[in-house]
């Protein structure tokens, strides 16, 4: 793993600032040529994800601060991003942050409340604060929470 990859991998998602873009599977590739020029490839979670511009700027800033003079960031669409690329570590961080991670629906037909752990939850809105999330509410602790949709 190159030094540039490590720096890029530490950039946080601006909408979910507890997980890195590497954790989420948004960071696809980082290459460094012999002139020290860095080429980064990132992929959006959704076509219209407004965080992509910010992520791109954050990448340039982080790599430039680390001494890389030429940094370019490319958006790639294929292969299409899927929540399967999210690491287990990212899912644990999301839960701790209060966002139910993807992947639990198919197993239990319910989403575990990130607050109290109850499975007595229901979807209150199929769309949430960002394109990648839906809104849920817990029947046990009565708290509403975001769920990162399996995609």
């Amino acid at each position: 793993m190159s030094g540039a990859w490590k720096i890029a991998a530490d950039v946080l998602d601006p909408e979910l600032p507890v997980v890195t873009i590497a954790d989420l599977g948004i960071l696809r590739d980082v290459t460094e040529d012999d002139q020290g020029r860095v080429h980064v490839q990132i992929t959006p979670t959704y076509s219209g994800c407004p965080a992509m511009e910010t992520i791109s700027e954050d990448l340039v800033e982080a790599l430039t601060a680390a001494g890389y003079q030429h940094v370019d960031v490319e958006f790639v669409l294929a292969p299409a991003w899927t929540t399967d690329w999210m690491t287990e570590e990212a899912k644990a961080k999301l839960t701790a942050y209060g966002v139910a991670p993807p992947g639990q629906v198919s197993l239990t037909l319910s989403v575990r409340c990130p607050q109290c752990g109850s499975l007595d939850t229901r979807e209150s809105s199929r769309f949430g604060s960002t394109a990648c999330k839906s809104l849920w509410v817990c029947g046990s602790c009565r708290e509403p929470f975001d769920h990162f949709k399996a995609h």
Partner: protein
Amino acid sequence: MTAPSDALSDYVLGLGDDALVSAQRMSWWISRAPELEEDLALANIGLDQLGQARTLLAYAGEVEGTGRSEDDLAYLRDDRDFRNVWLVERPQTDFGVAMARLLVFSTYQCELYAALASSTDATLAGIAGKAVKEVAYHRDHARLWTLRLGDGTTESHARMQVALEGEWPHVEELFAPVEGALVDPQSLRSAVLSRVEEVVVEATLSVPQVSPAIGGGRRGLHTEHLGHLLAEMQDLHRSHPGVTW
């Protein structure tokens, strides 16, 4: 005879314009939806469509080879240069109309993007492979509302039926032949119609028996509504050329 690259850019422009104009119509609902959750839903659906439009228009500009960016194409063309179908350009200020249209449009996009995802054009296949998952979610949303309204009260049933009757004449234009098409629009027709009709029947509504409207959006012929939509959408960009946030 149109050169192949012109035909391809025109085709991609049509797909991008459908998504862009639909997104703009969808954004009208922000702050006007019947409940807060629906405000979020329609804003998110519009945002997905806008994202698709951006990648499609950027690609259309690239194929065209004249250096026009996605912004140039979205904000600096007049209505006669837009290639979207009439289905998406008419106002949708009734919630039933918005859901009837979304049901038709998202079902069409599902079939279209699924087919394009295995196209030989790698860029379009990439865009479509990404977008197909998004529009499937839109379709599911429109389906749930169609069922709820169609199989709801006498009032909601009647209004949903009127909405369908109004959208139906514009369905055929989606399947009109297009030069340069990588997926023949006609090949999508039976799957789209049967999937939409299945929902209509399940919602206890009737499949409208109406004649197709004339259409002509793919050739740049539009209803008067598109001009008004563009005036609002393009005003800022044209009033302040080169403006950035």
